[in-house]
């Protein structure tokens, strides 16, 4: 039995000749027995009724409405046919005969020419990035700005413009976002879910999203605000707008905030939003204090793992039981194998927040730590200087990246350093991170393994045990997967930790015991 399908276009007008051509083309579609276009007048509906073709939809058509009646052959997919007919009606004449897909030259023309375009990813030289972002915002696009080296004045102007238009101005200098389950720039493949993340830290937010996933939860949106958003000058414009957007988002049940500690005035502003969100908000301000967060009604997280755990718990998800890692016992085993003089931990990181988390864990044990991202100038170690004591380097920081790709894309610089550290008889352990996911190197472990073997050979030949600890940030859904990369590390004798937080604890215990 054939079925009637119909499209009714309210008060829509086509030139008679193009209408005729739609009708002819519709008659030529596979699976169409007959197609007919006419206005929805009484008489026309009467004819259809007599033929038994008058559906309810057609019955409701009025004189000024255009009816496209399609009688589909038995067994044909009427939904698909209808879509094809709709397509005939809406198809615009091709802008150029025979030309391939249109390539746009400017953001404005792309925004105007691509129906439904809603977000621009800007990854051009910092000198031009602000301009392109402004054009995008002016064209009504949300912006994810991957570029760094953007002047803070430009950032403020752009964020104010975005705020006025109700748009997102994500970035600069924090290349992570997940919008509608699509990771932009650096990001991991995680399950869709109810945890919304607003983050001023790239790898910090990647870590939280990956932990949430591992704990059985999922991410609704991940909004990267840019590393400077919570500074006094920028004033948290994007984080405030991000919290509000997630507070209003029906798909988000729990909000997680990730940042280095904000400027005091900004913290106040952000915590006021936490109080007003109307949803549970987990706050992980790296190295931040609990009191203010709790006072604002937020849920304080002391580390990334705790942030993810609280979020998942508040979202009502019971994930797989996770075995607690006994960092103390594991560290004791390591230290037992060390030679005389092996005292220090050397952390070589791609992810800034991963570096921070481990560095602070060691520092919190009362030990001195040197770093290129140390806040205390007395312990700051510029790029190019040799390591000292417990050293933690962020290879993603500007003074290392200057002119080069980010170490998540190009790990060459860190590979050299691994071998260099292995030759230092004071080194007890080297701690590394490997960041998987979109935007990252396609096989970061594989490309580093020869250097790890070389490092262990150097130590072995000098009669030392060199402990290599690595954390792989990624999920089972990433390509390559966290499982494969971890297995490859273990096979090379590397101790693989299971979260950034655990990495910090393990490093702290080794440092404490080795130095003791």
């Amino acid at each position, binding site marked *: 039995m054939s079925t009637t399908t119909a499209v009714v276009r309210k008060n829509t007008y086509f030139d008679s000749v193009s209408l005729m051509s739609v009708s002819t083309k519709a008659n030529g579609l596979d699976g169409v027995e007959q197609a007919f276009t006419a206005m929805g007048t009484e008489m026309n509906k009467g004819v259809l009724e007599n033929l038994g073709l008058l559906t309810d939809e057609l019955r409701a058509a009025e004189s000024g409405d255009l009816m496209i009646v399609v009688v589909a052959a038995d067994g044909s997919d009427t939904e698909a046919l209808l879509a094809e007919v709709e397509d005939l009606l809406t198809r615009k004449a091709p802008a150029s005969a025979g030309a391939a897909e249109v390539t746009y030259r400017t953001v404005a023309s792309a925004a105007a020419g691509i129906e439904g375009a809603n977000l621009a990813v800007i990854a051009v030289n910092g000198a031009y990035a602000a301009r392109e972002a402004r054009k*995008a915002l002016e064209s009504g696009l949300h912006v994810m700005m991957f570029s760094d080296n953007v002047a803070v004045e430009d950032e403020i102007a752009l964020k104010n413009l975005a705020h006025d238009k109700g748009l997102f101005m994500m970035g600069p200098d924090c290349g992570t976002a997940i*919008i509608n389950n699509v990771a932009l720039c650096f990001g991991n493949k995680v399950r869709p879910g109810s945890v919304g993340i607003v983050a001023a830290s790239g790898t910090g937010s990647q870590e939280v999203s990956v932990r949430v996933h591992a704990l059985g939860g999922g991410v609704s949106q991940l909004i990267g605000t840019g590393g400077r958003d919570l500074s006094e000058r920028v004033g948290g414009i994007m984080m405030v707008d991000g919290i509000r957007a997630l507070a209003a988002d029906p798909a988000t049940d729990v909000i997680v905030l990730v940042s280095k500690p904000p400027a005091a005035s900004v913290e106040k502003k952000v915590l006021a939003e936490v109080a007003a969100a109307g949803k549970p908000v987990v706050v992980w301000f790296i190295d931040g204090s609990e009191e203010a967060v709790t006072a604002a009604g937020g849920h304080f997280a002391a580390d990334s793992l705790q942030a993810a755990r609280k979020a998942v718990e508040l979202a009502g998800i019971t994930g797989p039981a996770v075995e607690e890692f006994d960092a103390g016992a594991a560290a004791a085993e390591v230290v037992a194998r060390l030679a005389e003089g092996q005292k220090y931990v050397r952390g070589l990181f791609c992810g800034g927040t991963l570096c921070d988390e481990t560095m602070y864990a060691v520092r919190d044990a009362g030990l001195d730590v040197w770093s290129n991202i140390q806040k205390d100038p007395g312990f700051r170690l510029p790029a190019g200087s040799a390591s000292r004591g417990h050293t933690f380097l962020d290879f993603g920081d500007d003074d290392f990246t200057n002119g080069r790709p980010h170490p998540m894309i190009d790990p060459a610089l860190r590979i050299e350093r691994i071998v260099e550290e292995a030759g230092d008889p004071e080194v007890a352990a080297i701690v590394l991170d490997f960041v998987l996911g979109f935007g990252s190197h396609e096989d970061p472990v594989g490309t580093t393994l020869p250097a790890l073997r070389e490092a262990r050979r150097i130590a072995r030949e000098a009669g030392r045990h060199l402990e290599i600890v690595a954390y792989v940030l990624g999920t089972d859904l990433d390509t390559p997967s966290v499982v494969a990369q971890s297995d490859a590390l273990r096979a090379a004798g590397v101790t693989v930790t299971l979260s950034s937080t655990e990495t910090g604890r393990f490093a702290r215990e080794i440092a404490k015991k080795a130095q003791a």
Partner: protein
Amino acid sequence: MSTENTEPTPAARLFASDLSVVNVGLALFDADIAAQGAQVSTLDWTPPGGGNADAVRALDALERAGVAERIEAANAEAVERVMAARPMLVGFDRALDVVPGMTPTTILHSGPPIAWEDMNGPMKGAVTGAIVFEGLAKDLEEAAEVAASGRITFKPCHEADSVGSMAGVTSASMYVHIVRNETHGNTAFTNLSEQMAKILRMGANDQSVIDRLVWMRDVFGPMLKEAVEFTGPVDLRLLLSQALHMGDECHNRNGAGTLLLFQALAPGLLRSSFTTEQKKEVFDFVASSDYFSGPTWMAMAKAALDAANGVADSTVVTTMARNGVEFGIRVAGLPGQWFTGPAQRVVGPMFAGYKPEDSGLDIGDSAITETYGFGGFAMSAAPAIVALVGGTVADAMGYTRDMGEITTARNPNVTIPALDFQGIPTGIDVRKVIDTGILPVINTAIAHREAGIGMIGAGITHPPAEAFTKAATALAAALA
């Protein structure tokens, strides 16, 4: 905060839609986003102003709040004037009698101002030919002395309400088109087509060239003058739009336009007071080359664009012209000023026997057609042109689309059937040229670099970016 507001916020709309990304800069992200099933379109991005810091600074100044709005309004005004202009061919006459400022010793040339000693070979050839034609010297040798003597006033056509194709050399007793912009009241002039390849405007100047000029002065010009007296004014914009519908772009391809113009003039030519033999000569002469209407469309464009000159704050280009050494542009908001850069090479197929190194640099006022929005800008109206200038039909379509990115409006009076009757891209905006890094495309003839040989090919060229950078800098100084 309003509780009544039911309109979703842009953020809510984003969360509720399919993600569609415009990717600027890194192609790497294109693949990642596409792999996750989202729409992504990566721009063919180049830094604004080709990365020239002056250009970007000027652009930033012109885009500042307050300034930008003024410019937008001015450009809308300028381009409305160009589009509303209704140029009518109202007659033909001797340059001396109609062109403002013309004297017996004035010689107009194409492009921005240039001194005799700086002119290239073809322009020098045309100038000396014209001096002989005017009887100011007995031969070419003496003509060169006269040219260098300071007795001749050299002036760009554009500064005498005129345009001239190729060398653009126009002297007192040559006949010119008179094109009146009925809407705004201004008038534009241009020389008659000499039809052949070996002609004065291409730098040829032997006796055959001079003889033809004499015939044009004594028969062709006067007959055209009488013809229009019989036919009455001819609506050139209307004929132009018809010619585009018939497959011309009216710069390098003029077959349809010439038929239409001749169709309009033929009854008047027949009724003129000349002998049948002379009429046959004229008909044969017109039939000898499709280019007959080429200058006519130039004057049409000039009459329309001049209406926009002097619109304060406007960044719309009203002139693009080359003198064989320099390419100059003029802008509506800075009347009278030229912004120049070196004339470029024209790239395209050459006539048999010539090589690229034989070609002279880009020359002539004919880029006024592109300034109005046809010629290279309307290549999609003339897909057959690709055989002449090289490239593919898809390229032709692409050129028109690209020109849409640097122009202010689409002229609804002159449309392109193949683009669903989209209007031609009109009103080149200096800011957009700098912003997009897209330079206007010009279809043009290639003249031999030496005097006396003439046209040896046709092709495509662009203005030097430098001219636009200078214009943007001057605009920024004046407006911001």
